[in-house]
């Protein structure tokens, strides 16, 4: 690897200062599971790494039934899975985090790193889209909040400006009879990148759908929403037939590429299958809430 310096600030303010000081060549490092590989391959050559893992608010997981979830961007995926409130209130996001790599990777890989790396196939992104999560961003000009659906600007690209970092991910408390589910398809049993990821969050009113969001991964230049499928479901009973139809509508949003993991045609097909299953799974959980 090339030469660089390393700092581990303990406050967001110090981190912003460090990130702003070194112009475009300072970068956040969290778990390093994407970044260190990119640096070894000389894809990225930061002169300064700013390690954010010692900043307390970035390691926080706090759930409040009124104000919802504050999830520190530096929380490693394994801590999400181990957290009782996460498993209970956001089981879909939790299962997405617990699918990432191996236990070795989950011990390091952060939720914020998964988001900021902005891979179209990142597993937590469709789950965050389904939950209508918001990224809290702090930079030299203060702080701002950006919904995850507006966060990505292309493969590997996001809306962060120079000196900015994501400090927390904010998610509303789930209303009654709401739950989420995330499913992905990979060519192997473990340790592979999704050829399709589908996240769904469903709110029921009796046996009808009151609200629903569907996020898709690995089928477009960025993770995307599937609004046509969601609109179709509003006011309907969520069963095999309507979930199947929603899956067909979700396919219309998918614009995947062919690659070594699967053809575009196959990916589009799988979008239908996983959307249907994620919706039925989320509804099943929502009935119990």
């Amino acid at each position, binding site marked *: *690897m*090339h*030469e*660089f*310096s*390393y700092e*581990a600030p303990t406050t967001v303010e110090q981190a912003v200062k460090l990130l702003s000081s070194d112009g475009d060549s300072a970068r956040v*490092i969290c*778990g*390093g*599971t994407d970044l*260190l*590989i990119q640096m*070894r391959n000389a894809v990225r050559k930061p002169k300064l*790494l700013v*390690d954010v*893992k010692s900043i307390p608010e970035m390691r926080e997981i706090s759930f409040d039934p009124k104000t919802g979830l504050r999830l520190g961007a530096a929380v490693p995926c*394994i801590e999400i899975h181990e957290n009782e409130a996460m498993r209970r209130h956001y089981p879909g996001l939790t299962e997405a985090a617990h699918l990432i*790599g*191996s*236990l*070795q*990777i989950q*011990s*390091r890989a952060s939720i914020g790193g998964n988001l900021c790396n902005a891979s179209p196939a990142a597993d937590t992104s469709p789950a965050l889209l389904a939950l209508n999560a918001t990224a809290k961003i702090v930079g030299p000009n203060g702080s701002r909040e950006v919904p995850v659906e507006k966060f990505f600007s292309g493969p590997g690209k996001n809306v962060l400006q120079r000196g900015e970092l994501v400090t927390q991910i904010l998610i509303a408390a789930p209303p009654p009879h709401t739950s989420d589910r995330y499913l992905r398809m990979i060519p192997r049993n*473990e*340790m592979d990148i999704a050829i399709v990821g589908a996240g769904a969050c469903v709110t029921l009113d009796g046996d009808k759908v009151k609200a629903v969001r569907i996020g898709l991964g690995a089928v477009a230049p960025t993770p995307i929403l599937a609004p046509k499928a969601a609109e179709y479901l509003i006011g309907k009973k969520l069963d095999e037939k309507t979930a199947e139809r929603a899956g067909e509508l979700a396919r219309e949003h998918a614009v995947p590429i062919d690659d070594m993991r699967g053809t575009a045609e196959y990916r589009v097909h799988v979008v239908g299958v996983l959307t249907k299953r994620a919706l039925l799974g989320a509804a099943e959980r929502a009935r119990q809430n």
Partner: protein
Amino acid sequence: MAKKSLVETTINGEQVEFLCEPRQSLLESLRDVLGLTGSKEGCLTGDCGACTVLVDGRPVCSCLMLGVEARGKKITTVEGLAEGTRLHPLQQKFLEDASLQCGICTPGFLMSAKSLLDRNPNPTEAEIRYALAGNLCRCTGYDKIVRAVQDAARVIQGR
């Protein structure tokens, strides 16, 4: 040469200070600076698990962590498993069950297995296979490794 940083950490229960460049991984720091060559380098991409060590009890790929990040942490490497000349039950069972051939993957498997048994002393076969999913072995076909972990669990529990 880049400025070196002083890193104070705990390795296998001992307080250790070492000097490394920020660009040196924990794996390089262990092997090249501290002479702890038990942890192996397979892929450098987090896929093979040969470099697995425990950091504050959790398994991590030391190839994907910087040496400077070890500051203030508790690191356990394969060198910390045996007590003097007494092998850890996992090591003993890997030998008895012929769970290694070339052996390059073994330190990583031992550390992943240790982290599993520390948390879950009586794992099912599925739980063992899940916990070892981040470790690759090109020689054994895994069955004997799984058996050794089951046997070691029995020894540790005194069954």
